């Protein structure tokens, strides 16, 4: 009885080991997708492109997006594509794009590509976004265009305005995505609008911050650090102190290097809110 039992045990272990080996490839794919939720699939006759993000949806503001390209005929994920994208807002009277990054491979050996798109407005009943993805595989160009859903948020995370220098700016909240009662690392994106289709990162400004709690006497918090760039082309980084949970309004001022304020007001006993701000609640 005993040796027989041992044999069965060995057999079982071997089977499990084998099973794990054969799954290895799939597991890499799964690991890449860990923490991501599929937003949607776009397809043409040759390929299907799957869009992913942490939240599984596209919303007003800053969106980190990952994608992968599946060859419809071979059912194999394409690892060597050159990818670019162009989101377009179709308004009643005009079309425009928004700030976006290039699309890069996450890892050489992996299947995922990544980039960001900062939607400065959400869709509505009569106005919508579409996304065009152009990609090249082994010298052959392909393209997919499809309507996408960009949902509104109940908190303000984007400010789009014309500064006192008559330049149109966009400022978006990036991080912390999970704010804490602590000094948080703050990340903000600032872009200029050169024209309807071009939104380069704006360099060499300062985003002054003043977090306030309007429900609690509009009090502020200590030891905040205004957001600045570490190098041209980078996002703006600062420190955000949050002394309690709840609803915070982060009042903003956009300042030039010489200190000139381009937009936003300082909070005083009579000025409760700046004209540009972010909202967070946790």
């Amino acid at each position, binding site marked *: 009885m005993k040796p027989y039992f041992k044999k069965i045990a060995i057999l079982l272990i071997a089977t499990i080991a084998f099973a794990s080996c054969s799954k290895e490839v799939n597991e890499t794919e799964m690991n890449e997708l860990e923490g991501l939720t599929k937003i949607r699939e776009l397809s043409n006759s040759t390929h299907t492109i799957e869009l992913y993000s942490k939240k599984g949806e596209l919303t007003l503001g800053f969106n980190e997006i990952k994608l992968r390209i599946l060859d419809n005929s071979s059912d194999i994920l394409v690892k060597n594509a050159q990818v670019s994208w162009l989101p377009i807002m179709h308004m009643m009277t005009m079309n425009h794009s928004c700030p976006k990054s290039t699309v890069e491979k996450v890892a050489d050996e992996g299947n995922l590509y990544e980039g960001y798109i900062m939607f400065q407005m959400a869709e509505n009943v009569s106005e919508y976004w579409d996304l065009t993805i152009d990609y090249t595989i082994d010298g052959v160009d392909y393209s997919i265009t499809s309507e996408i859903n960009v949902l509104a948020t109940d908190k303000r995370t984007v400010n789009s305005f014309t500064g006192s220098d008559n330049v149109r700016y966009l400022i978006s909240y990036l991080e912390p995505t999970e704010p804490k009662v602590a*000094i948080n690392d703050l990340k903000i994106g600032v872009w200029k609008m050169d024209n309807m289709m071009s939104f380069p990162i704006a360099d060499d400004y300062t985003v002054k911050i003043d977090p306030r709690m309007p429900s*609690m006497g509009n009090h502020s918090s200590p030891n905040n650090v205004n957001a600045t760039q570490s190098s041209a082309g980078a996002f703006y980084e600062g420190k955000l102190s949050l*002394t309690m*949970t709840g609803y915070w309004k982060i009042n903003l001022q956009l300042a030039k290097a010489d200190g000139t304020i381009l937009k936003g007001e300082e909070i005083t006993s009579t000025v409760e809110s700046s004209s540009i701000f972010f909202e967070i609640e946790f």
Partner: protein
Amino acid sequence: MKNLSTVFLIFLSFGFLTAQNKEKDTTKIIQLKEIVLIGKKAATYQKEAKSLGTIDEYLNQSSRINMIKRGAYAWEPIINNMPTERTLVTIDGMRIFGACTDKMDPITSYVEVTNLSEAVVQDGQSGSLFGNTIGGSIDLKRNKTIFGEKKLEVQLQSGFESNNSQKILGSSVNFKNEIFYFDLDVMSRNAENYSAANNQEVLYSQFNKLNFSNILGFQIKENKLIETSIIYDNATDVGYPALTMDVSLAKALITSIKYEVIPKNSIIENWETKIYFNTIKHVMDDTTRPNVPIHMDMPGWSETFGYYSKLKYRFEKHHFLVNLNSFYNKSLAEMTMYPNNPNENLMFMLTWPDVRTFYNGVFLEDTYDLSRNSNLTLNISLGSHINTVTSEFGLESLQIFYPEMSDTKSRFLKSFGANYHFSKLGFHCHFGVAYSERAPSVSEGYGFYLFNSFDGYDNIGNPNLKNETAIEGNFSIGLQKKKFRIKANASYFHFYDYIIAHTDFSLSPMTIGANGVRVYSSLDTATILNTSLSVEYFINQFFTWNVQTSYAIGKTDDNENLPFISPLSYISSLRFKKNKFTSEIKLVGNATQSNFNPEFGEDQTPNFAILNINAGYTFKFGTTKLMLKTGVENLFDKNYSTYSDWNNIPRMGGNFYVNLNYVF
């Protein structure tokens, strides 16, 4: 008045408070202790003029103790003009820490007068038997019968006070025999709002309290005993008219077990070891208050484990006292604010970030008899004090202010003192010098946006505070003759790194309507001088006249006034006693507070004087006794407030009381 060389006078309470036990008092004077006796044993219980007064009222009679009053309940004792942080209040040697960030639950609020036998008050550093103190200590000693001839005594107490319709009902059972004793005491109080003069109702001054206390002792061998003790105290619906919040629940469970050896014919007089645990829950909220800008809850919890082992022995002319003691305390308090917009998330913070305090200390004292009339007492106390912030949420919150702060802070605390006593033929005098240190309290070190409604500032703790230290000198002199007794007393404290909150103008207050934010920091130096004078005159066998006065002054290094320093205060009484009848007329007053500091929310409190009268009689029916105590406080219904009434809330107007005590 500002000149420190002015002679200040006060009075000492001995004669007045503890006339019932004169021999004992005399020896205690020599030991530099003041004892507020509270009906020690059933036989003397009756001798307090108001037998069922609150513990706060009793302690307040001492010239060394003042009370910060935020309402009708749970007054905060200040010893030698120093509040809780600088003093040490224990119950039978147990360390207990209030769970309220606003000091609305001093330790004294968790006991009842009927289960205490005495409160031992010690001045300054000499009170550091159970831990570090600068200002002094109060040890609340509980009533217990101790072994003896078999006896069972049952008492019923009931009382009523007209002003706030306070109803008092209690009962105690005391049993003893040769090897066993048992004391049980239950007391309930229920009071409605009190009224100041002219029937002006002071809203939110009601309270309800139930207190249960039990001590059980048994002899395990000759001269060895084990004693268990439990106190359960539950106060509900307690109003604090001087604050913006009330207390829906203050609950304490205080337990201990003690092993004691009293050897016969040994150099060891007594050795006792006690292990204790206590847990306190305190729930502050403002749900009953209308028109608050924002509703909030502020619950707090405090748990303490500890032990002490105290050995007394005598060797030739030395009397040694050694006490090893440790405690581990957890203090946690939260604040949740409810936005007016119900869709908004709750606003939450930790006001005490789960701070653990671990203390290990030793106290050594040697009293050496220099001659038949004099002795010299030397003592030293050493302790390790470690604070750890265990909540990551709380630590990160504090790191907003102190980014480099680590979760642990260790301190070494030391103190030492020397006291000389001399007494001969009714004359006695005493000199003492001492050096003492203390660690910051949890609020001073780790408090997060604690609103002080007295000065109107939010307070932030500072984990980097230095230990506060003080050099102390004290002196007393007295004479007792057949017809009179007189005593003068002075103590002087010179502080270094005196901990106090300072306004930081760069910070924005969290509390709606607050004046700003203060962060705890240290003054380089500060001084406090306390003086008192008491005179008791025995007019004849029936009448005794007593007067006690006290005066104090406290200054910062910029010669500004420290807060909560008593102006000239006085009590004068004429007491009549014949057989089973006692009566007393008593004048209590304060001079105008001339040394105040608006910076700390103080304003000038006008002088006042009120008159109290009382009378008592003991009826005997066979073996049963009925003690009747009755009196009128604030006889002329004066409108007044003292310097230590939080936000100048008016004190009680005229109040008639009757206390009954039946002994079976």
